């Protein structure tokens, strides 16, 4: 069965830049779907094509089985919450929300009751007669959502609606958005470059990079099983290990020899054969480090000796950078017990580094990744660079 909202090979070019490159995916009815990606990757362009402000150069967009690619924006049953809210400055909060209903020519008392209902939903009843320049950013935001929702769109498009808000307000609005979504049951298409927002709100996420949708999956899947090195590094931090399969000791597991590092065991869900190149991603929190060797040798545990190079304490966890051979590895370790769980780890200590073979994930590509997206370099380099200046 076809999905509620479907992008079929949608492509958009601006001169030489390809803003969106063959985007094909479906969004289910009532789903909270996010487009996540760095600035300039084509998220807004994709959204504007759905809203009708841009025409795709190729491909079709279908909503509820109907091709809406060529419909003008005012004939589509989708509504947008713009990044800067775009409230009408000459209309009061009430009239802003009522705009869509007035256009539709609904009777006056119906408009009134609908707008009242919306005002209650976004908790702005007492500000109905204020003008947009008399309310705060968070309130504008809520009016913008109400103005779009009151028309009962089939899909609500939100283009980085929280980008202009401060952190505290953003967190509160995040919660409210989630509540509103649960309450109205409308399909949300949410654009953001903030992985935290996307992770916490979405049913599914499309991670975009340079106009291409690199992975479309549930948040946990995107995090734990990233398809490409871009996805792995854009969402959370990770360690990449480029290696060659040296042996396959048991089904579904293989040994990787990683240049300048060590030979490690990893889960082989991609059915790689001996001699294949593999790009392995291991999240920093998947490692354990300890002064004593890990107790009770669990099966398929990789255990290595490492030297601590840097420690950054951040309350609920500590970041360690350790060196193994020629490689540096980033590690997050949670503090499970009061103060310090185990023997304290200090700079320069020789420690044990361990992780389970299942906790590494093979990526589809081995392409070199954007340097700026790698975990932060050890401060020694930064200090050296600082001195050189």
């Amino acid at each position: 069965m076809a999905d509620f909202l479907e992008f079929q090979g949608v492509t958009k070019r601006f001169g030489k830049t390809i803003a969106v490159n063959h985007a094909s995916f479906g969004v289910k009815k009532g789903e909270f779907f996010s487009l996540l990606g760095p600035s300039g990757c084509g998220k807004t362009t994709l959204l504007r094509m759905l809203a009708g402000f841009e025409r795709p150069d190729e491909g079709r967009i279908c909503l509820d089985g109907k091709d809406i690619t060529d419909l003008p924006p005012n004939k589509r049953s989708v509504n947008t919450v713009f990044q800067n809210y775009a409230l009408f400055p000459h209309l009061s909060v009430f009239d802003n929300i009522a705009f869509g209903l007035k256009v539709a020519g609904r009777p006056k008392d119906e408009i009134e009751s609908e707008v009242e209902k919306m005002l209650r939903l976004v908790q702005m009843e007492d500000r109905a007669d204020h003008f947009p320049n008399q309310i705060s950013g968070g309130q504008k935001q809520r009016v913008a959502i109400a103005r779009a929702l009151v028309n009962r769109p089939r899909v609500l498009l939100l283009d980085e609606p929280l980008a202009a808000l401060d952190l505290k307000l953003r967190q509160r609005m995040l919660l409210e958005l989630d509540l509103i979504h649960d309450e109205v049951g409308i399909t949300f298409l949410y654009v953001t470059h903030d992985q935290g927002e996307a992770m916490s709100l979405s049913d599914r996420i499309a991670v975009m990079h340079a106009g291409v949708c690199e992975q479309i999956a549930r948040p946990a899947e995107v995090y734990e099983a990233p398809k490409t090195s871009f996805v792995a590094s854009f969402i959370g931090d990770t360690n990449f290990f480029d290696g060659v399969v040296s042996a396959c000791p048991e089904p579904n597991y293989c040994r990787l020899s990683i240049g300048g590092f060590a030979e490690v065991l990893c889960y082989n869900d991609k059915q790689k054969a001996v001699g294949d190149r593999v790009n392995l991603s291991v999240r920093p929190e998947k490692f354990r480090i300890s002064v004593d060797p890990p107790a009770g040798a669990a099966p398929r545990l990789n255990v290595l000796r490492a030297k601590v190079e840097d420690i950054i304490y951040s309350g609920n966890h500590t970041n360690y950078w350790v060196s193994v051979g020629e490689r540096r590895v980033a590690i997050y370790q949670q503090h499970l017990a009061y103060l310090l769980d185990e023997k304290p780890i200090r700079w320069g200590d020789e420690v044990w580094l361990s992780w389970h073979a299942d906790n590494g994930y093979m990526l589809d590509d081995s392409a070199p990744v954007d340097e700026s997206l790698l975990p932060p370099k050890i401060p020694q380099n930064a200090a050296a660079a600082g001195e050189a200046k």
Partner: protein
Amino acid sequence: MKRSFFSLAVLGVVMAFLYGPVLLIFAYGFVPNGASMSFFGADGRFLGFSGKWYSLIFGGHHSVAPLMQSFWLSLRIAGLATVVSCVIGTTAALALHRFKSRLQSVHYALVYTPLVMPDILIGISLLMLFVACGVDCGFWTILVAHVTFCVSYVTMTLLARLQDFDDRLIESAYDLGAGPWYTFFKVELPLLLPGIVAGGLLAFTLSIDDVVITSFVNGAGTNTFPTFVSSMTKHSRNLPAVFALSTLMLCFTCALVGVSKALSRNPQNSKRKSK
């Protein structure tokens, strides 16, 4: 800052040059003797103020009939020229703002030219055009001439306003289901109204006191207020009536400016003040 004698003197001179003539006009609107233009009789006795010029005007006396005729003509032409140039100027500004073409700079230059061209050149060229077309000069040629230069002012004023117009408002109106006309009347027009009013006001004042261009295209016997006044003999017995009318016009213009100021004030600002 300390007020020195010098700065006060400069202020006094500037004020005298700016507003002295206006006060004089106002005063001479009440002169009792139109022939001598003096408040004093031959024997040096003060004759007092007279309201007879005002009563001539309001009474519709035949001696001021041509003056009144020219005055009403000026008002009609200025009013019509304002409306027409507002409509044309607004559409021109919107088009120039929205459709950025390669000829953009050429279009801007075309709009800009009448602002910098000497009036006398516009007057002559328009007259040549009307003659070439075989049009009789009169009311309509004056109107066309006034619209020609007023449109530029309205367009330029509005283009400046459009610089800080948020185009996303139009998109959000479309997004909420509005068509182009609904969007224009409910979103663009209310937001641009202060700019249109400002442009219209400029057009009105320019039209009502234009002498140079009008004197080329008015043809025989058709006089607007400024051309009539300038053609009046220096020693016309009814000159004080001109002063009286000018005073009335000044009051009218001030009232117009006041009204437009009140109109163009943003509703949200006035609301905020009242709170």
